[in-house]
């Protein structure tokens, strides 16, 4: 591929105390790709996500997004610059309505000031109206609009996952990071989820990095896969290569046999 990468991670790593949770991480994502990040439990997948999104500051190496070095900048700025994420254990705003959950993502896109809101100036009403309309339109895409006034915590599990993805997309990202979106889902829900991912990818012209524990699932949808083990990259390549890589097989088998 000759295009310039959307995301480039160069030799990034992080240490907690003496423990190197992730080291020498090198990732390249080109626009429009759907890439998987897999590995056994505790391999450092979520930690890697946290490095990319600014939750953790890398103690070594660089994270370059859209040509800009972003390590060390706050998570909200990373999100505003076009990278948003979901969480392994759903983090919705549970006591807020479905609509307001999505509106939070629209917050950064709206312009009306706090003073305008406090003084009830016309710009406040215009801004709020637009946010509301946009958010409802957005929920319609995900067929969540009929739940818009429900509290997020009252949605069934599968719909909560859906809402979390919708919320991440409402922030208008170029790169979407999904952290084990299929965790805890039954086969039917997993199937629906994969369709949803394919759909949003096309619809929003997205690049997606997907963490998944379940190898078979990732093999089915991703074009390229990175494999992490013990905080380091073990392998990289298209699914068929990864599937037959002895190191990968050993890492996964090792998990079952020795642990």
């Amino acid at each position, binding site marked *: 591929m000759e295009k310039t990468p959307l995301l480039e991670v160069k030799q990034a790593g992080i240490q907690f*105390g003496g423990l190197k949770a992730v080291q020498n991480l090198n990732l390249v994502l080109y626009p429009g790709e759907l890439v998987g990040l897999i590995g056994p439990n505790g391999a450092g997948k*979520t930690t890697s996500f*946290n490095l990319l999104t600014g*939750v953790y500051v890398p103690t070594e190496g660089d994270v370059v997004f859209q040509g800009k070095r972003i390590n060390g900048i706050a998570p909200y700025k990373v999100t505003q610059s076009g990278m948003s994420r979901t*969480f392994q254990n759903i983090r919705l705003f549970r006591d807020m309505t479905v609509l307001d959950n999505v509106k939070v993502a629209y917050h950064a896109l709206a312009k009306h000031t706090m003073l305008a809101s406090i003084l009830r100036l016309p710009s406040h009403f215009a801004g709020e109206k637009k946010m509301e309309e946009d958010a409802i339109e957005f929920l319609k895409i995900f067929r969540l609009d009929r739940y818009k006034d429900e509290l997020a915590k009252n949605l069934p599990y599968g719909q909560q996952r859906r809402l979390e993805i919708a919320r991440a997309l409402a922030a208008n990202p170029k790169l979407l990071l999904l952290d084990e979106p299929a965790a805890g889902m039954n086969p039917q829900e997993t199937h629906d989820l994969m369709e949803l991912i394919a759909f949003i990818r096309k619809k929003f012209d997205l690049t997606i990095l997907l963490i998944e524990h379940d190898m078979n699932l990732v093999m089915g949808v991703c074009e390229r896969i990175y494999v992490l083990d013990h905080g380091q990259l073990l392998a990289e390549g298209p699914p068929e290569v990864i599937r037959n890589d002895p190191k990968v097989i050993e890492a996964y088998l090792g998990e079952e046999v020795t642990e």
Partner: protein
Amino acid sequence: MEIIQQILNGISVGSIYALIALGYTMVYGIIKLINFAHGDVFMLGAFIGFYAITQFQMNFFVALIFSMAITALIGVLIERIAYKRLRNATRIAALITAIGVSLLIEYGFIYIRGAQPEAYPDVFGRQSVSLFGATIDMKAVLILSVSVILMLLLQFIVHKTKTGKAMRAVSHDTEAAKLMGINVDNTISATFAIGSALAGAAGVIFGLYYTKIDPLMGVIPGLKAFVAAVLGGIGIIPGAMVGGLILGLVETFVSAIGFSLWRDAAAFIILILILIFRPSGIFGKNSREKV
């Protein structure tokens, strides 16, 4: 030799803070609750000791042990009645409850006996000893000895007994401890009993040292002892001892250089600084929230 006297004063006050701080730190370590009522258990300890000496003519040391026994019981009752239901509540709900329990003890006690202070009986008179040319109040020596003995005893309990091992296990991982067959409820009760007994002892020696006790006397030493616990690293037993001593010395020093009105602010300034720059305290390890 003014300086030796000042240091000794500081250590005496500090060891009272340390005794109270131990209860805070043990309870926080085990159930992550800032037990606001702990300062009031200290107050009750002072009054129990006072009544034991004046009404029941007990010897000072007998009164001390008597007070420790009753405060231990009070601590367990507080835990069983108020805090036990809050094990799965938010920490904020637990904190609000603890504030409520604290106020209830203070004003319930005032309601029963009135707010007037009492003068502690002067059991040892004004004896003093001479050390390196400094005249040292016997009471300071007594406070120190009692504190050191109690702290050694605590170390023994925590490290050498079955109860102590259970306490450490529960504070490390409650769920795992439960799976290993440890009776978590009893262990928590034991923690409250030990912590409260130490606060009760602190109350008695506080009364002896400062001679005046009143129903609201626990508020400020309670808060300061909490600061001492945070300073040493909350949840860490030696941390509470060191934190208490440091706080006592700093306060004595601030008074000695002529800022006695600012003495109470010193503790809170230390608190703020430690929370901002090293929230895990002197002996604590950094931990961050899991994402």
